[in-house]
Structures are given as C-alpha cells and as structure tokens.
C-alpha cells in the first residue's frame, strides 16, 4: 500500500473487519461475541465513510451512516436482548471444531480468498480494489463460524460476518452500490436479525436454553 493517509486509514479499517472475524472464532462468551460484532459493524461503517470522504460521494457517506447505525448499534443491541441475561449455558462450550483448529483453518481461508480473488482485485485496479480479497476472507470465515458453532447466538454472529464480508466487497469493488440499494440491504439485514432473534426467544420460551445440536427432530 502507498503511504497516503487515505490508503493507511482504509487499510486499517478493512484490516479491523478481518481481525474481528477471526476474533469471533476465538471468543466463547456471549458478551464478548456481541462486542466483536459491534466493533466489526463500526469498522465496516468506517470503510464506507473513508471511501465516501475520499471520493466526495454524499450518497456513500449517507450509506456509511446507515451502516454505522444499523450494524454498529442496532444489531448489537438486538443481539444483546436476544441473548438475555447471561445464563449458565450461554457460552459456546462445544464448537464442532475447537478454537486452535479454527484459527488454523482461518489462515487457510485467508490464503484461499487471496488466491481466488487476485484477478478481481487486479481488475478493479484501485487501492480499495486491492483489498477486495480481505472481504472475501471475512465472508469465508463467517461461513466457517456458521458451520462449526452450535449456539444460536454464535451462528448469528457467523451469519453477520458473511453479510459484512459481502458488504465490504461491495464497498471496495464499486465504491458502494447505489445508495438506495445499500440502505435496502442494511434494512434487510436488520430484519433478518430481528427474525432470528424472535426465533431464538421462541425457542427459549418453549424449550428452555437450547443448543442447536439438540434440535434433531427433523431428518430422513
């Protein structure tokens, strides 16, 4: 990366999104995972904000504000509500892949992302474009978290990583899809998380504290 403050700030913000994704694999307590989700949301909003200021694009700055509000504040608050007051079982105690192995896997996923998206990064051809593989890596790590974690809250965190990774690629590739689309996407994510939250609450009220592992009624 070049030495301009814009490039440095952008790289720092994009890097933070990825670090948050890896941290999700690492933490096991409910409270810290929500905190990491919030920090990632803020970092994503900052990416959009930095790009918006650099390109002097009012629409993008508007989108960044929406992302900051939805992903940095609204979603973490909802998640906190869904997880309720910390019960004994609220830790991720039995991930399918344990923490050290998950961290090793995340390194492989990062390498994979860089290998697969080198061409796209070159095609975009800007400072931001060079960082596209980081977004892809975030998406892959989110997918990994989703597949290997058992608690509803941790799966939701994985889902949000997938989503933030996609949003990051959108911002870096194209300096943000049109403003309306961006807002629509953020609202859809908010809705999705609300749905998941309602489901978690229903699961809890009907059947007590659940591990998704225990939901094994439906099969062939």
């Amino acid at each position, binding site marked *: 990366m070049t030495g301009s403050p814009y490039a440095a700030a952008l790289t720092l913000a994009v890097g933070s999104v990825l670090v948050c994704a890896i941290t999700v694999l690492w933490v096991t307590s409910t409270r810290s995972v929500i905190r990491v989700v919030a920090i990632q949301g803020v970092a994503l909003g900052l990416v959009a904000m930095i790009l918006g200021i650099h390109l002097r694009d009012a629409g993008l700055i508007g989108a960044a504000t929406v992302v900051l509000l939805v992903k940095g504040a609204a979603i973490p608050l909802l998640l906190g509500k869904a997880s309720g007051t910390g019960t004994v079982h609220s830790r991720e105690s039995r991930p399918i892949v344990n923490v050290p192995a998950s961290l090793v896997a995340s390194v492989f996923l990062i390498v994979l992302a860089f290998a697969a998206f080198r*061409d*796209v990064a070159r095609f975009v051809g800007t400072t931001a474009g060079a960082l596209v593989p980081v977004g892809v890596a975030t998406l892959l790590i989110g997918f990994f978290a989703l597949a290997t974690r058992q608690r509803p809250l941790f799966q939701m965190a994985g889902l949000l990583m997938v989503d933030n990774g996609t949003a990051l690629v959108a911002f870096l590739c194209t300096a943000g899809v049109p403003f309306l689309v961006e807002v629509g996407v953020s609202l859809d994510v908010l809705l999705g998380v609300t*749905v998941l939250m309602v489901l978690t609450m229903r699961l809890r009220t009907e*059947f007590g504290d659940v591990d998704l592992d225990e939901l094994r009624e439906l099969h062939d």
Partner: protein
Amino acid sequence: MLLSLVLLLPLLGGAAIAVGWRHPSVAWVAVATNAVVLALGVAAAVRVVGSGPLTGMSGLLRGDALSVFMVVVIGVISLLASWFGIRTMALDLAAGRSTPGRSTGYGVLVQAFVAAMLLAVLAANVAVMWMAVEATTVVTTFLVGHRRTKGSLEASWKYIVICSVGIALAFFGTVLVYLASLHAGGHSADALDWTSLMANARNFDPSVMRLAFALLVLGYGTKVGLAPMHSWLPDAHSQAPAPISALMSGVLLTVAFYAILRFKAVADLTLGVSFSRALLVTVALLSLAVAASLLLTQRDYKRMLAYHSIEHMGLIALGAAAGIPLAIAAVLLHILGHGIAKSVLFLTSGEIMAAEGTTEIDGVRALVARRPALGGVFGIGLLALLGMPPFSLFTSELIMVRAEFEVGLGWAAVVAVVAMVTIFIAVAGHARHMLLGPSTTEDTPPAPPRWVSVPLVSALVCCGLIGVLAWPLSGLLEAAAHVVTK
C-alpha cells in the same frame, strides 16, 4: 399503472385483514385480492404479447412477457393457497392450535409474502429483485414457524440460516455483475437495470462474469432448493402449514429460479452458453440424484412431496441448461404445471393430516375407499406430478427431453429419465400404500365441504386442459422465452 396496481393490491388486502380482523369473513378479502391480481396478470399478459413491455412506478417496475407470465403463476397459486388458508385457520382454531390474533398475523404475512414475490418478478432492477427475494425469506420464516412446535421452529431456524447465506452469496454475485457493468461503461444509477445489462453484456469482463454467475447460481440456487444447497427444503416444506407449503413449493422456488434465468441471459451474452450450461447441468443432475435416492426410503408424505420439488427444480434447471427458446418455453410451462399440481397436493395433504392425525405414510391406509374425495384428488394430483398425460407436466417434460437432444445434451436427458423412472416407482409404491386397499373400519368420515374440494378439482382440471390445449398460453410462452434467449 397496471403493474403498480398488481403490486399494491395484496398489500391493501393485508391492511384490510389487519384492520378488520374481528370480522369473521375478512379472510375472504385475501382471496378476492389474489383473484384480482390473477385477472390483472392475465390482462397484462394480453397487452404485453400485443404491444411489448409495460413499465410502472416511474421505471421501478418493468413487466415483459417473462415477468407477466410469473405474475400469472403467482396469481393462480396464491388464489388457491389463500382460499385454502381460510380452511386451515378454521381447523387450527377449532383444534386449539392457534388464536384469533395469530390467525390475523398469518393472513397479513401471507399477503406480504405474495407482494414480495410480485415485486421480485416485476422489478426492473436486479438489485431490487434481490431485495424482494430477501424479503420473501424474512416473511416466510415466520410462516414456517407459525405452529410453534419444536419441529417447526427447528425448520424455520434451518431455513433462515441456510437461505440467508444463499442470499448473501447472491448479493455478492450481484455486486460483481455491477462491477462488470460499471467497467463496461454503465452509469451507477442504471448499471443494474435489466435493459442496460442486456445492452452492455457483450462488453463485460468474462472472468468477473464467470465468478458472478457461479455465485448467483449457488446463491439463488439455495432458494430454489437445488442440490447441494437443498437441505432446508424438506424440513421447511413439511413443517409449514399446508397453504404455506403450497406457496413455497408451488411458486417461491420458481421465483428464485426466475432470477437465475435472468442472469443466465446476461452471462450467456458475455460467456457464450457453454459456461452456464455446464453449471446448470451439474446442479440439475445432482438434484435429481438426491431426490431419487431420498424418495425411495421416504416415510413421511409431506417430505415425499418436498423431495419431489427438488426433482422438479432439477428438471427445470436441466431445461434451462439447454437454453434454446423451445426449452425455455417448456421450462415455463413446467413452472406453471408443477406449481398447480404441487400446491393441490400440499393442500390435500394438509386436509389428510387434519383427518388422519399423522404425516407418516404408514399411518394412512385405503384412503380411496375410506375418503374418496381426498384420496381421489391426492391420487390424481400425484399422477399429474409424475408426468402422466394429459396433464401439462407430461407435455413440458417431453418437450424438454427433445430440446436436450437437439443441443447435444442427450446423455443428460437419459440420466434424467432414469432418475424420473426411479422416482415414479418409489412414489407409486408409497401412493399404493396410502391410497389403495379395502377399508378395514366401518366408519365413513364426513367428506371435506364442497367449497374446499371444488378449487382443488378445478385446479387439476386446468392443469389437464393446459396440457391438451396449449393455445391460450403459447403466444405468451414464446414471447417470454425470447426475453431470455437472444
């Protein structure tokens, strides 16, 4: 104007249900609005075939032949499902499984669901289409979990988690298409409009487009229920209330496939047909194999119907892979025929479940002797679904197989036919258990009221008539096929 009306009517119906929920007959408002949507869809189809695409809401909506064909399909299935929803809610209330408040919520959500599907097929911009498909996921999650049993909550959890990942991948694909479109000289405001995509697609970067189309097939394919992303489908379709299963299986799957068809047209202009063909043939054959192997050992008749959907989505993907206008027309005819037959079967299965108290195939015996109306409709519906003449699925499958041979995919057609024969044997075996045999008990339970069975029978008659006389549709099908084959 016409298109805006089509989109707003279901929402107005939903609002009416929310406001007038104390009134017992307010649920019929949904039936009325969906009937009007169907009528408007037919009117729009006549106009589009006569004088080209319609637009609405200052360019936000665009109805070409393909879009209005999908509006007609959505209209037919939602009319059937909302008619039957009245029956389902009454049965649930009587059995103490629901409350008036929750029934109202159900009615409002179904209208929102229908509106979201209509927006998905009428959107002029593929990003708006994406948002609409995402909205259907959010709404249907609540509908799948409507009964709040352990099974239905598990199914809705699985549904939203898997489909959200799919939807995220589809968004990723859409972003890459946007990138390709911008670099080919598109303006950010209309770079994702269908018309400008088709106009510029020849200049898109092939390597970006290849990645984009693969992600789009994977992403929207999750919502279609194509293997290997199908695992949510049997759970969600078997746990949802019968009218929701009918809507999801009959038309939501194909609305997602509509998105793939649109992007296939764009990708084919950039990459030639071979890339999309290879991708679609792979997922199609995989879906057929999964459906065949799991149908052989199925013990639950609602899950049996769900796996049958995976088979038909596989067939539709195979037809789309061929890509010539004849094949696309057959795919669209199949979408309509499958939608009608599958929703009739899901609605009947809801009635069977209410009467027999089980969804196990082993728990249902001699249905034709004991409950002639239910058993008859279920049996005839299965024949339609298995592709027996005179039903339209026979016609469309025949044309699709012919088209496969025409483009040199004969081997894939042969594999598909082998899978279809396996599925026929499996399903016929299950159906024989459920339907035939002498009645062992003396009781003759009451048949379902006529207002419930009449729409089901007339839907099957329509499915048969479409198969024999293609004329009311052939012009529309031809025009729609030409939208995505250029």
